[in-house]
C-alpha cells in the first residue's frame, strides 16, 4: 500500500492510478504504519513498479510504499 502526506494527495493519486487501470482500494491507514493522513491506497504487489512510475511522473510526493 502507498501512504501520502495529505488526503488531497491520496485522492489525486487515486484518480491518476484509476485512469491507468490499476485496481486499488482506499482504506484507513493501519495503526502500526504511522501516516500523515487517515487514508491510504491498497494495490496488488504485482503493480508496484507501475504505481511507482505513475506517481513519479506526476511529481506527487508520497510518504512511502509498504508491504502488508
Amino acid at each position, binding site marked *: 500500500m502507498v501512504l501520502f502526506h495529505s*488526503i*488531497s494527495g491520496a*485522492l489525486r493519486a487515486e*484518480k491518476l492510478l484509476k485512469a491507468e487501470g490499476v485496481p486499488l482500494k*482506499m*482504506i484507513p491507514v493501519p495503526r502500526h504504519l504511522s501516516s500523515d493522513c*487517515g487514508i491510504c491506497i491498497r494495490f496488488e504487489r504485482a503493480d508496484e513498479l507501475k504505481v511507482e512510475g505513475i506517481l513519479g511522473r506526476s511529481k506527487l*510526493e508520497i510518504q512511502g510504499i509498504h508491504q502488508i
Partner: protein
Amino acid sequence: MIYLDNAATSWPKPEAVYQAMDGFMCQVGASPGRSGHRLSIEAGRVVYETRESLARLFNIDDPLRIIFTSNATEALNVAINGVLRPGDHAITSSMEHNSVMRPLRALQERGVELTVVSCSKEGFLDPGGIEKAIKPNTRLIVLNHASNVVGTLLPVIEVGAIARRHGVLFCIDAAQSAGAYPLDVSFMKVDLLAFTGHKSLYGPQGTGGLYIRQGVEDVVEPLMRGGTGSRSDSEHQPDFLPDKYESGTPNTVGLAGLGAGVQFVLSRGVNALREKEEKLMYLLIEGLGAIPGVTLYGSGDAREQVAVLSFNIAGIASSEVAMRLEEEYDILCRPGLQCAPIAHKTLGTFPGGTVRVSPGYFTTEYEVDIVLRAIRNIASMGKGIGL
C-alpha cells in the same frame, strides 16, 4: 423580475449546481479528509474534483496548488497578510476593491510601505507606472484583473512580466474575471491568484480560493491554523499544500456546488460565455450612451471590460435610481460605492457613487431592452425627489 446584480453574486445558477449541492447533502454529507470511511472518502473526492476542474480552467499543472477559502476576500487576506512584513514595500492600483485596500491600509499602519499607482479616469492602468514604483524592498504587487465598479481590465500580463523580471511577487484579484475572462496562470506569470466561487464560476456564496505557485508557499504564512486531518500526531501546522492553508472542516456542500459551476464554465467554454456577455454589454453601453442626461463611466468599449457597467442620471442620486428601478420596473441592481471608494475617487464619482448594472449568462437581450427603456423613462422625468 430582472436581476442585474451578477457582479455581486451570479444568479440564478445552472441547474446542475443546485443538484450537486442537494445530492451532496442527501447522499454524502460527511467530513472530507477526516476518516477512512466511504462517506468521508466520497466527500474528499467531491472537494478534489472541484480542485481539479479549477486547475483545468486556470491551466494549473497540480490541482493541490489551489487552496480553498470562503471567498476572494479571505484568499486576498492570506496572500497580502501572509507575504508582507514591516519594512516591505507593496504596490497596488487606484482601482482596487476594499478586499485589497483594507488589508494593505492596515499593514501600512504596522510598518509596510505602500504605493498606490494612479489609473486614468476611465480606469486604465499604465504598466510603466508600476515598474517605476518598484524599489529594492518591493515584495508584492497586487492588482485586480477586472474592476468591480466599471469592469475595466487591468494589464495583468504586462505587469506579471515586470514583476517576474524584478523578482517581485505578483498577486491577482480575479473576483470579477474568473470564469468570465480567459485566465492562464503560467502564461500570465502570476504567483498568487485569488478567486471567488459565487460570481462567474456560478458556485454558491461561501466558496473561493487562492492559487499559490510552486515554492511561493515558503513565504506565505497561513492566516489560520488548526485541524487538517493530516499529521495528527503533530501540534504544528503541516507545511505542504493544500493543508497548510486549509484548517477546519471546509464548506464541502458549497464546493460540491462550485464544482458543478466550474464544470458548466468548462463545458460552455470561457470564450463562448464571454461572447454572450460582451454582446449584452455592447447593447447596454450603446443604449445607455444614447440617453440624454445619462453619464457612463469606464472604458465605453465592451471588448475592454467584463460585464459590469456604472452610470449616473443627472440630478438623481444613484440610490434613488436603484430604488425606482426596483419599485417601478422590478429591476435589481446596485447603487453607491460598491465597496471600492478608491476606484470611485479615480472615476470622479466619490462620494455619490454610481448605479451599477451587471448582466450575466442568464440575462437576455429582451431584458436589456426593458432596462434601457426603464432608464430612459427615469431620465426623461428629470429631477429626483432628493433621496
